[in-house]
């Protein structure tokens, strides 16, 4: 790149010589021929080198982009669910695309511009100074103003850009959520309402963008103005000098040519300021995300254990999402290997929250949870989670094949796979799929019913044998007949495991060793099925209603 810039500076020198020859009236075709060849040669060298550095610089900018994005994704996979309660998916998606893009632009074009400006600019300036210091000094008069205005404008741009990007994130989120709930939007004829909402968000983005555009629009003309002023000064003062014969006309021409070369770096400053400010604002946003530490982290020196057996104790555990109202308060309970507990309670009573504390998806607010007599927070996070089979309440399938959705990268023998498929009552379902286990499901695959999704999610949970099994409402979308088959099979699957089941269906809980009834975040009642029928009104009512249904049906 330095060589390119250097060669670029030689060309005017040759032209200068040629013109000085001409103005003297002497003319030597042979010399001229060599000069032309020389120019051509330099042109070739420049082209080759330009190819090289463009490739190198832009390539490394892409490399940087690649790296940032990888890191961002990795970070996102590491962040705990609590973080996602605070940040929106749309935000993250904006980070991953638009923001990273701006950073790349800053480092690709921006870097080129910087190097070009510094090298080409200073070299040109040096030659100009060498040719005629006074003339150069005069030509540089507008420079301080230029630097000042670019800086002020740059700062403004930074702010404008940041607000615009934030607005963009919001817009992205609105759009994402609308597509996600498209069926509801359609049935309720919300289309125009939602469109209006997105329109407003777009308008907001538009307005903020316009501010950014204003600063943008001012920058380039301003730079050109300063540049032209320099030209004027050179012409005026230089012309004066030529008349006084203190420089040759050729020198003045060369001088103006140099100023022409300087034009590119000057305009580049404008570009650069813009790109850099945008890039920096975006980098700030990305860094904010990258710097947000997960709430749940592995301890630095985890307790090293061979394996976990699944002895879980809750001791006075309280929990709240962020700074919100407590969702769980003073929960104490115990689960032993080979034992199963059931959890029931009205909506919003904290069942799901309780289940999520065991694989440490969230940290407790107060109180402690022990696994094999070790506080959860002293165990390595991966180690802990490797011993827990957890099924979240809402079955989510990745757009992938059924097999991949069950395995998620883990490998098990065909025998195990077949067994789990059998246990989860998926055999018939899968056989009917066009490509069996290799059928694509998820957002772009075959449309599955809620029950089918749930059973695949269940198979995913059970596919590897774990000492702790936590199932959050595993049979809510399955018909009663299949549900009872499922529950029986799950209970037989691993007799040594500690099992925690959340369900509304008493039939799913009845066989548990102990059942806890939650109410407003506290344990309201606990006991066996027989005991609870006597002690808990909620349980009794639920049981009665469910029994009544059965009797009615009979």
């Amino acid at each position, binding site marked *: 790149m330095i060589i390119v810039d250097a060669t670029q500076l030689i060309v005017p020198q040759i032209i200068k010589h040629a013109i000085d020859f001409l103005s003297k009236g002497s003319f030597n075709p042979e010399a001229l021929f060599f000069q032309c060849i020389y120019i051509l040669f330099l042109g070739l060298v420049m082209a080759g080198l330009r190819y090289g550095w463009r490739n190198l610089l832009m390539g490394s900018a892409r490399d940087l982009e690649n790296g940032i994005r990888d890191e961002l994704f990795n970070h996102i996979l590491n962040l705990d669910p609590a973080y996602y309660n605070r940040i929106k998916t749309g935000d993250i998606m904006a980070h991953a695309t638009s923001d990273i893009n701006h950073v790349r632009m800053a480092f690709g074009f921006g870097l080129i511009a910087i190097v070009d400006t510094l090298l080409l600019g200073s070299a040109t300036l040096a030659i100009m100074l060498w040719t005629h210091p006074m003339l150069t000094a005069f030509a540089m008069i507008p420079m301080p103003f230029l630097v000042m205005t670019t800086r002020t404008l740059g700062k403004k741009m930074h702010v404008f850009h940041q607000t615009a990007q934030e607005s963009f994130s919001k817009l992205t989120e609105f759009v994402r959520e609308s597509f996600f709930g498209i069926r509801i939007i359609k049935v*309720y004829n919300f289309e125009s309402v939602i469109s209006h909402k997105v329109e407003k968000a777009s308008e907001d983005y538009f307005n903020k963008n316009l501010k950014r555009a204003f600063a943008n629009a001012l920058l380039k003309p301003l730079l050109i103005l300063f540049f032209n002023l320099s030209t004027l000064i050179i012409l005026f003062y230089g012309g004066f000098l030529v008349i006084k014969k203190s420089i040759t006309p050729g020198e003045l021409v060369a001088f103006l040519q140099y100023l022409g070369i300087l034009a590119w770096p000057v305009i580049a400053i404008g570009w650069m300021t813009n790109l850099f400010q945008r890039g920096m604002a975006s980098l700030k946003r990305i860094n904010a995300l990258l710097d947000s530490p997960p709430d749940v982290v592995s301890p630095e020196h985890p307790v090293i254990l061979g394996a976990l057996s699944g002895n879980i104790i809750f001791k006075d555990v309280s929990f709240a999402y962020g700074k919100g109202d407590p969702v769980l308060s003073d929960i104490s309970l115990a689960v032993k290997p080979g034992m199963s507990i059931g959890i029931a309670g009205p909506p919003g009573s904290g069942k799901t929250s309780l289940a999520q504390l065991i694989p440490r998806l969230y940290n407790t607010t107060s109180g402690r949870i022990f696994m094999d007599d070790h506080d959860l927070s002293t165990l390595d996070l991966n180690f802990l989670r490797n011993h827990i089979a957890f099924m979240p309440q809402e079955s989510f399938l990745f757009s992938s094949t059924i097999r991949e959705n069950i395995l998620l990268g883990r490998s098990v023998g065909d025998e195990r796979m077949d067994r789990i498929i059998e246990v989860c009552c998926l055999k018939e379902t899968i056989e009917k799929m066009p490509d069996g286990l290799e059928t694509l499901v998820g957002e772009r695959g075959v449309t599955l019913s809620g029950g089918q999704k749930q059973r695949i999610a269940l198979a995913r949970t059970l596919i590897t044998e774990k000492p702790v099994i936590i199932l959050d409402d595993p049979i809510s979308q399955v018909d009663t007949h299949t549900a009872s088959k499922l529950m029986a099979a799950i209970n037989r699957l691993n007799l040594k495991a500690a099992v925690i089941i959340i369900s509304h269906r008493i039939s799913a809980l009845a066989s548990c060793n102990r059942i806890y009834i939650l109410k407003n975040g506290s344990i309201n009642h606990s006991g066996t099925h027989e005991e609870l029928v006597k002690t808990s009104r909620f349980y009794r009512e639920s049981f009665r209603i469910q029994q009544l249904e059965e009797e009615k049906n009979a």
Partner: protein
Amino acid sequence: MPDTSIYQEEKEIKLADLYLAKTLWPFIQPYTFLFCLTTVLVFIVTSLELIIPILMQKAFDGFILPVGTEKSIHIFGFEITSFSSFCILFSMVVLTSFVIDFIQSLLMEYTGQTIILNLRCKLFSHMVFLPVTFYDKNSSGRLVSRVAGDIENMNEMFTNVLIFIFRDLFLMIGVLVVLFSINSKLAFYLTAMVPVIVISIAVFSKILRKAFRTIRQKLSEINHSFSEAVTGIKIIQTTSSRKRFMEKFKLLNFEYFSASLYQIRVFSIFMPLIGFMGVLSVAIILWTGSFSVMNKSLTLGELVAFLSYMKIFFRPLRDLSETFNLLQNALSSAERIINILKTEKAVQRISFNRERFRKISHISFDKVNFSYTWDKPVLKNISFHLPQHQSIGIVGRTGSGKSSIINLITGFYQPGSGKILFNDINQESINIEDIRKKIALVMQDPILFSGTIRENIKPSELDMDPLKLEKALFDANCDFLFDKSSGLDTLIEEEGRPLSSGEKQLVCIARAFAFDPDLIIFDEATSYMDSNSEQKVHDAMKKLMKGRLSIIIAHRLSTVRDCDNIILLRDGSIMEKGSHHDLVALKGEYYRLLEKEKI
């Protein structure tokens, strides 16, 4: 996660540039005036830019080089006698150029952004009206990247590219004209370059566009990965499959990286090539020009001017190739956007002869067959009638086609054969929105949007008597909402936080109540509820069902027991049909299922 072949977006989108222009025209058209104005301003700025070297040349020939005292130059008929007044003129030109350039830039940004705003709103509202089939085929993450990223990309096209191309082309033509006027022989040499340039642009544009297509495609895959990772985070973390997801993503990201590297490589051949042509022509002009100066057919000042003009000639070329890069990028985005806007035609084709429609009083299915993919029938020969004020229960195992019936009634999908009749009118000849206005649907997965609870039940844009709203909430047994932190104005965040799944479902039911529909569909709506809440909802359902049509899909037989009619589906066919008592008396599958449910 699948291997990369599955990851691919729908087949590569390729459209002719002419078609692109035609489709985008309606968006540009209202702003033609602004565009023309900007273009005029651009021309003025460019002309001023072109005048500057002329002024310089005149100054050379008029003031600097002549040795005598008679110094004067003629500019546009005016005689300027002093060097200082010339300088004033020069600075005036420079200042005007600045002001106009600024106004022009601002106007251009404004126009571009406005077009983008309109395009984005149009695209979104268009997408919202697309059939559900479209959303089943395209993941939401990928679609978001259309509305957000691709449109943003086109922004460049309207703001920077279009006008710059105008300007640069104009500048080049202007320079050529000036050059011809100075010395046609020299200018002729320069024109010889033009075909070479045009051909190289054509070749490179083809290669570049292809590269950009891949880049845009990969980018939307990346978007999809992010969206999926966030949604499935709990599963990813608890199954320890983080590494796996990371590897998949790295691979995808790398593919994106290689695609962009390819683009860079192509472009870095293109740019120096243009630069080399510039140098080549400088050499040629210097060579031939020097001879002309010796022949006295060209003044030295003219040669100098010629050389400066050539700089101006090649600078836009350099710009042009840079903007050209942006243009190719923007066009590949435009292709993807237009592809969505195009989807419209297939759907709206059947919108002729639609009848106005006030109230759904009865519905029937007549030998309806349906499949999502042609080779796998989901519903076979379904016929039933739902008379006024009655309810129908649909039961069957998961995957037996229950939800598909709903997809047909709501018009999300069209039946393969057979007819669906609303008040004896074929569904096809009724505006589907008229039907939907009369239907309330409560689905398995409770879906809430960000906003307040109130907005979720009844959007603020639709007027509703607060008393009526309150009544709807009480009817839906949703009175617990009033006890939430800010009551009905509690903000709901992404995925319905801070409500629990059960509460979310109750809010969804309240929404159905608030809409006062003719037909209410419960699609396993009580699956997230405990028996107590379910009982409440059932009470409310009964209240609501009175005097309306209702369809209840359930996997528990007790839920549909009280329906006037029950349909038992198996593998997409109706196995048994009749009232609860009929079906029990039949002692068929329904009866067997009842027996099993007792266990």
